[in-house]
C-alpha cells in the first residue's frame, strides 16, 4: 500500500506518459565515433537516391521478404540522358552502365530489418532520419489510406521514354534470338 501511495505523490518526477501529438518521440541521438554517414542504424521509412543507384540488384537479393523490384536496361557508359533524367556518374564517381527503369519498394511487406542498406556500394538506399538526417528528416508517420499508395516507385524515367527503352530491350532480345 505504501508503495502505490508513494508513487502518487512523486508524480512530477516519475511519470512516463508522453503526450503524443505535442511531445514527439525523441529520435535516439547517435554518433558512432567515426563518420556518421557510413552507419545508418534507424528503422523508419526506406528511401532511395535513384541518381546514385547503379542497378546492381544487391539490395533486391538481400531482402528476406523480397519487397524490392528493380528493372534496368543497358545504356552507354557514364553519359547523361536528360529526357530520362538519368545522370551518368554517381556522387562517388562510378560510371553507370545501366538505366534504372523501375525501382519499386512495397512498404507494406518491408519488415524493417535493414538488411538491404548494408550491401549497397553507393549507399543510395537507406532509412530516413538516421545519421544522414541532414538530408532527410525522420518520418515514422507514413500511413496511407490505400494500400497501393504504400508501393513507392523511385525510378524517375517518364512513362513515354520508358516505352522507348522497354521496346529497345525487346529489339535487342529479338536480335539475340535470331
Amino acid at each position, binding site marked *: 500500500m505504501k508503495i502505490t501511495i508513494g508513487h502518487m505523490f512523486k508524480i512530477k518526477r516519475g511519470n512516463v506518459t508522453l503526450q503524443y501529438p505535442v511531445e514527439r518521440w525523441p529520435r535516439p541521438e547517435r554518433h558512432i565515433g567515426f563518420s556518421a554517414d557510413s552507419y545508418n542504424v534507424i528503422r523508419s521509412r526506406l528511401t532511395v537516391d535513384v541518381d546514385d543507384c547503379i542497378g546492381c540488384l544487391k539490395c533486391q537479393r538481400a531482402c528476406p521478404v523480397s519487397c524490392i523490384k528493380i528493372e534496368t536496361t543497358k545504356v552507354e557508359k557514364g553519359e547523361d540522358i536528360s529526357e530520362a533524367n538519368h545522370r551518368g556518374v554517381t556522387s562517388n564517381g562510378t560510371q553507370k552502365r545501366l538505366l534504372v527503369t523501375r525501382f519499386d519498394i512495397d512498404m507494406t511487406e518491408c519488415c524493417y530489418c535493414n538488411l538491404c542498406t548494408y550491401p549497397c556500394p553507393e549507399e543510395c538506399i537507406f532509412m530516413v532520419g538516421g545519421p544522414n538526417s541532414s538530408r532527410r528528416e525522420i518520418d515514422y508517420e507514413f500511413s496511407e489510406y490505400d*494500400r*497501393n499508395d504504400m*508501393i513507392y516507385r523511385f525510378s524517375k524515367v517518364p512513362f513515354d521514354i520508358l516505352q522507348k527503352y522497354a521496346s529497345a530491350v525487346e529489339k535487342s532480345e529479338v536480335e539475340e534470338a535470331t
Partner: protein
Amino acid sequence: MDLAGIIEIINAKFGEGFASIDEEVSADTVRLTPEQWGQLAPFLRKTPELFFDAMMCITGIDEGVESENLAVSYNLHSMKHNHKLEIYVSMPKSDPKVPSVEQIWRVADWFEREVYDMFGIEFEGHRDLRRILLPSDWDGFPLRKDYEFPETWHGIVINKMKEGWE
C-alpha cells in the same frame, strides 16, 4: 561418458554392430532402423548408467526430392550424467512408420504430433496422433520437399493479389 562408451553399452546389450557410427555421414549420430529404435528406446531410458531422462528434440527431415526417404532425428540428453546422444532413424517415403516413444518421454507426445503434422510420419502406438499446428482438415504435409502450395483453402485465396507489382 562419451559417445564410444554409450555405444559399447548398447552393443553389449543388443549384440555387436547394433549401433554404429559411419564417419562419412556424421561423427556423432547413431543410425538405426525403426524396429531397432523401438527396442532401444526403453533400454536407453531405464539403464542406470545411461539414464537418458530428457528428450531434447525430435526433428523430422525430408532427405531431398530424389533420395526417396524421410528421417526422424532424436536428440537425447541425461540430466544425471550430462551426456548427449543423437539417433537418426530413416525410413522409405512409401510407408513412413516409426514406433512412438510417447509413453517413455512425455515431451515426445507433442513433438511427434508436430512431425506427423509436417511430414506425415506415422508414429505407431501414439495415443492421440492428430495435427497440432495446422487446421485439422489440411491436406498434404507442408515440410516435404515435394509439397505444392494449395491455391485456396476453404475459399480463402492464399497469396495476396496486388496490382502493379508483378
